[in-house]
């Protein structure tokens, strides 16, 4: 069995997932993972699926496009190579980094530049900018994996320094605390 990943992007409306999975089912594909989200009015979804050797991905993509284009949705399909998570990902600990502060351009770029330089991998990012100077209206939540061999003190100092430059209030906490408090 081969695996592929497809992404769907476009205006949110009822029936998108049904349309995508309908085509996949008709082509005897098996959906393994799905993640979807909605930002403002836009839908984004990614599907990992397995398919048999005699299916051409090109044909599949054409079929999906034919079905989704009228709905104002774009689709992209890509073959997944057989590999587990690359060994270049070092052992890591999950942290949650939260920033609050007045809205301006370059906030995400500024913070993530520091993370990228230290090999910190973002596993989930939620950013809500309602605009204006009210800090509570402009929040970024990064769930990240911090390599265990990284000097966390240095990372933290650099993040705090960058946040200060961007006029952001920053919190850096191990993920366990959120789970301990909120989940049974």
């Amino acid at each position, binding site marked *: 069995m081969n695996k592929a990943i497809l992404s769907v992007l476009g205006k949110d409306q009822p029936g998108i997932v049904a349309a995508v999975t309908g085509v996949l089912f008709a082509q005897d594909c098996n959906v393994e993972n799905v993640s979807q989200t909605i930002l403002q009015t836009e839908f984004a979804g990614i599907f990992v699926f397995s398919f048999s050797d005699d299916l051409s991905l090109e044909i599949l993509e054409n079929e999906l496009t034919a079905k989704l284009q009228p709905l104002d949705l774009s689709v992209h399909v890509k073959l997944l190579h057989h590999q587990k998570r690359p060994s270049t990902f070092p052992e890591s600990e999950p942290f*949650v980094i939260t920033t609050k502060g007045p809205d301006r351009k370059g906030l995400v770029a500024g913070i993530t530049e520091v993370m990228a330089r230290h090999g910190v991998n973002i596993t989930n990012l939620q950013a809500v900018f309602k605009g204006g100077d009210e800090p509570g209206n402009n929040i970024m*939540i990064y769930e990240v994996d911090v390599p265990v061999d990284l000097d966390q003190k240095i990372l933290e100092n650099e993040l705090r320094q960058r946040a200060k430059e961007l006029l952001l209030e920053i919190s850096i*906490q191990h993920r366990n605390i959120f789970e301990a408090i*909120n989940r049974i």
Partner: protein
Amino acid sequence: MLTDREILSTLEMLKSENLDVRTVTLGINLLDCASHDAEKLKYKIHTRIAHFAEKLVFVCEQIGQKYGIPVVNKRIAVSPIAVVGAAMSSSQLVDVAKTLDAVAEEVNVDFIGGFSALVEKGIARGDRALIEAIPHALTATNRVCASVNVASTRAGINMDAVLFMGKAIKQAAELTSDKDGLACAKLCVFANIPQDIPFMAGAYLGIGEADAVINVGVSGPGVVKKAIDRARQSDSKLDLGQISELIKKTAYKVTRVGELIGREVAERLKIRFGVVDLSLAPTPHVGDSVGEIFQSLGLVSIGVPGTTAALALLNDAVKKGGAFASSRVGGLSGAFIPVSEDLNISKSAREGFIGLDKLEAITSVCSVGLDMVAIPGDTSEDTIAAIIADEMAIGVINHKTTATRLIPVPGKKAGEEAFFGGLLGQATIIPVNNAKGANHFIRHGGLIPAPIHSLMN
């Protein structure tokens, strides 16, 4: 994946509602340090404590930083010194207290508890020496805390010990008269003292405990108050059953924090984890007060009629939430009402909403007792002993822990202010009514027998 609501509500608790871990207390067993030679005893105590506590502060700070939750106090509790130093004289025990103080400073903990004796049924030689040493020991040291258990549901009330403590408290106050009787703020008299309290001044390591153990005291009155305020704002028709449920949920969250941090500190220090004490412990800061919770519940002030019922609800809900959050609950676990350490309670005392009588009444439903209560300096030792006896009776009969931390402030009268500084705060001196004349009842001495329900077997 965490939801943004989970993350933001947690941050709110930490940033603006004063959620913290109030204390990580390292219990250290000193029983095998006992010696007839005072120098050897002090050397062994010093070495033992320094060995176990060397990294305590460093590890607590590291873990606190990892989770973004401050561990406010790092403390040590040791085996009762009356047992460890049973062979010592009273003046030698004062020197032992100085050793404890020195090693506490060395490892940078703010308090060390365990200058203690357990005398609920009788006073042994070492106990007598220790109680006699308490006033001088607490005057000569900064970080040492003392506690004496004078009563238990199983043994009754040792009235000789009660009177003895009245005398010790009076003497401790006189010796520190230049600091408003500060020594008394480090001295608790208990009924049914638990073996694993992490909070001061009552912390000591029980005889039945291991070589070393980490106990954690969580807090969070600010978190509970804000939760009630928020809920009442969004639904003004909340009934008390629903409020109790809300407090339970909040206590659950607070306790989970303590458990997580305590376990990790214990693991890093390679010391076993003991208990989480899920108490609502105030500090003299705005927004970190148990007293304010009463106002959020709709009372004008702590002390007015309705206070006892409100505290009963609060204390019970805290316990239920906490017990669900941790299977290792111990210590005092409930709400503290230390008058001087809580801005709001202190204010209520100043404005006359709460007096000694109401304080005593509400100790029947809270976790401790007459805590950090400043009384006039001319209160006699008989009267102090009598107040202790009343408080002990509440504990013994109701099968609960009660305690007193009374400070007869030398040279000051009711209505004046006493200043203790730092976490100990300041308080208006509360009048003691009906305190004139000798108290023959107290002077009878002997043992008030254990109540009938002590016969449980």
